């Protein structure tokens, strides 16, 4: 080796890799127990109040490209440093796969830009195999996780309403905001179809939980990071308030390469590349907790080869990287003529939908698929950004002016009038569904490729099955019916079988989980039911990796609950001197 790996003399109680939902929750819980922690994050610090980083309440003209996505996938104002493509960190594909891997390199990771949709998994979601014979059951049930969901609700905050629906458990809810006009149009349409539509469940503070975080002021910009911390980000809801206790030492811009083990195969720490000086270092700890994201944690384990673990660490089952699965997605847009020429008022609201539709079809048979999806809705008189006003000709042809003129295209005063009359009259539908985890969908180390830090990269192999395709068909058929029922017009062409009904590419919904799944059988799972590696008793994974399946619910709330549960278990096991 051309350079010396620098070892820190100090040994921490716990080394945590990653500062997103799982890592932040573990850091908070373990620090509260008085443990000394090294927290490693592959990106820079992030503070939503720092003028150099703040994007909240910026106007489109403050960006020369008016917020377009030239350097950030979701636009200039989105708070994600990273994206599906990071120049220094490539990944590759196998057998024609096209898995898209989104990463955020910053304190708080992907919790800084996510939709804050905070849904508990229901009892059925842990036991789906009992229901449809596909995939596997979790080794734990809703009752094991429920007490932690309760604690997460009260610590972090989520609004919603108690609905008493069988597989959509209620929680400790703050009051939800009133819906907006377009949401009432959708509501009246879906209720007629026998489809539910209820207040959404988002982790935004409509009331205060303490004096540190302020209440929401309705700018609709949670994806930009909040100056008053009214929404959840691991950075400002978990890590920054815990830092003052002095138990956590942060390692920023630290790209972890592998877990270091001793001659007995137990974890002794991790090695990382400091992106600032491009040198490799080692941090030592009694316990190692991986929270680098499902795919990154799998990558670290697979790259941690030693004599005791020739196959990569915690991988005697050969299951590390297997069963990676993302949510499905499909969408549609509509024009509602009754929403044209609207009265103007501020309807920004919270940073997401105020109403949503949970899955309603558990008791029905469906054509070609067995698992459900929820529907997210968007629309309203939003702030313009790059792309606003594109394709006006496609709208003008749909609804004639008073004089009957609907000639698409044009210019001048007439164009300006069209922009004004159509403003706020379009809305969108997005289905987010559960896929069936597959053994043959996996990520592995590409032996031929390294990233800029010399670390071998991941190679993805992923194919949707017919279940996901047919579920997407059900989505677009349902959206079309909702739109017709509300007197709307479908915008664009409805995707058919040739486009898999608009089914998104795997990874595009950014819910990939399952790479280090938990189970009772060490031959078919990587972790036990406490997210502890079967093979290495002082190694834990607390990101989306442990998921056996992920329901149609966004994974973050379950990552938080499971991380808290695992952290309690670590404290207990250290006390009992079992690890």
């Amino acid at each position: 080796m051309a350079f010396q790996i620098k070892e820190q003399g100090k040994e921490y109680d716990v080394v945590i890799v990653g500062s997103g939902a799982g890592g932040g929750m573990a850091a908070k819980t373990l620090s509260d127990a008085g443990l000394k922690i090294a927290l490693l994050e592959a990106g820079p610090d992030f503070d939503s109040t720092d003028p150099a980083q703040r994007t909240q309440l910026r106007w489109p003209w403050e960006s020369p490209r008016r917020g377009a996505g030239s350097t950030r996938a979701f636009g200039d104002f989105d708070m994600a440093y990273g994206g599906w493509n990071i120049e220094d960190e490539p990944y590759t594909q196998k057998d024609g796969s096209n898995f898209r891997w989104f990463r955020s390199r910053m304190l708080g990771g992907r919790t800084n830009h996510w939709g804050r949709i905070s849904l508990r998994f229901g009892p059925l979601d842990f036991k789906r195999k009992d229901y449809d014979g596909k995939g596997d059951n979790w080794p734990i049930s809703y009752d094991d996780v429920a007490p932690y969901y309760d604690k997460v609700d009260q610590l972090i905050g989520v609004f919603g309403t108690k609905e008493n629906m069988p597989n959509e458990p209620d929680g400790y809810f703050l009051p939800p905001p009133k819906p907006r006009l377009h949401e009432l149009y959708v509501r009246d349409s879906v209720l007629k179809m026998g489809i539910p539509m209820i207040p959404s469940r988002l982790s935004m503070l409509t009331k205060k939980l303490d004096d540190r975080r302020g209440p929401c002021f309705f700018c609709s910009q949670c994806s930009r990071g909040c100056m008053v911390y009214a929404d959840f980000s691991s950075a400002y809801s978990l890590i920054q308030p815990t830092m003052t206790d002095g138990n956590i030492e942060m390692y920023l811009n630290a790209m972890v390469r592998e877990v270091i083990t001793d001659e007995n195969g137990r974890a002794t720490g991790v090695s990382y590349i400091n992106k600032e000086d491009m040198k490799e270092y080692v941090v030592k700890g009694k316990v190692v907790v991986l929270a680098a994201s499902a795919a990154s944690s799998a990558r670290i384990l697979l790259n941690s080869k030693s004599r005791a673990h020739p196959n990569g660490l915690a991988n005697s089952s050969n299951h590390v990287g297997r069963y990676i699965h993302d949510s499905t997605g499909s969408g549609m847009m509509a024009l509602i003529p009754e929403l044209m020429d609207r009265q103007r008022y501020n309807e920004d609201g919270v940073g997401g939908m105020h109403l949503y539709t949970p899955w309603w079809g558990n008791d029905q048979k469906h054509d070609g698929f067995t698992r459900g999806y929820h529907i997210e809705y968007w629309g309203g008189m939003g702030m313009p950004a790059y792309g606003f006003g594109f394709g006006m000709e496609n709208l003008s042809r749909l609804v004639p002016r008073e004089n009957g003129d609907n000639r698409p295209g044009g210019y001048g005063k007439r164009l300006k009038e069209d922009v004004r009359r159509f403003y706020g009259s379009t809305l969108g539908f997005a289905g987010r569904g559960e896929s069936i985890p597959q053994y043959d969908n996996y990520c592995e180390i590409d032996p031929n490729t390294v990233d800029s830090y010399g670390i071998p990269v991941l190679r993805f192999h992923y194919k949707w099955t017919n279940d996901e395709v047919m579920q997407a068909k059900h989505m677009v058929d349902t959206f079309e019916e909702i739109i017709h029922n509300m007197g709307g017009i479908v915008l664009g062409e409805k995707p058919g079988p040739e486009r898999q009904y608009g089914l998104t590419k795997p990874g595009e919904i950014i819910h990939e989980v399952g790479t280090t799944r938990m189970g009772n059988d060490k031959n078919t799972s990587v972790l036990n039911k406490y997210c502890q590696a079967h093979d290495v008793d002082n190694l834990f994974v607390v990101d989306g990796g442990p998921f056996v399946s992920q329901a149609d619910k966004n994974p973050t709330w379950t990552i938080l609950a499971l991380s808290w549960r695992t952290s309690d278990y670590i404290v207990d096991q250290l006390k009992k001197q079992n690890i």
Partner: protein
Amino acid sequence: MDRRETLKTLVVGSFASSFVLTGCNPDHMEPGAVSEEEVNLGKDLGVDLDAPGHGYGRTPAEQARDEMLFSQTFFNDHEMATIAVLADIIIPADEVSGSATDAKVPEFIEFIVKDMPYHQIPMRGGLMWLDHESNRRFDKVFKDLNEEQQIEIVDDIAYPDDVAPEYQAGARFFSNIRNLVTTGFYTTRIGIDDLGYVGNQPNAWDGIPEEVQKKHNKFYRDEYKDRFLKPEEREEIEDWSGYEL
């Protein structure tokens, strides 16, 4: 590391490679070379290159990229003048708001084609097409035609459903530049005031105004009315005692 040092690292490091693809002139990649002229170009568009994070939360790598783009010039004076004429045909001043050039739309277009290089050839070629057609019909370039002559040509390419085969390329260009002019206009203060967007500020959302509910015949359902947030209670700390699941 100060900003100059950061830029130097970025320029010699991995970030430099992305500029090769966008046709950047390496002479402009000298670290810290933000001239007064570039700062002023930024200010024309509402961007403050002197502010921390360029005033809109840029990372050091993103700042380096912005500065690179501001140091380049894509359109020549003739092209810029033609864009200005077209922009004001597409978005003229009316009784509600000003024109595209009032909102500095040509400057936005100059920036965006550098930011998104795939616009460059269609835009440059489209302007050439327009001058060619103007010369063919009137023996003058487009910007020197009188208004009536300009509109004669624009009418042949502005309505995509009714375009003669020989004008298809021109129509395609016109649709593109209409998109850029419209988006460039409605993302400025002038455009947003024209539109009547009144958000992007702290407020206390308390539902759809009553007269709007009545007009659209959309009302909140009784079963939810008492469960929604009461904005006056936002500052209270939630008390979970007595909360039952």
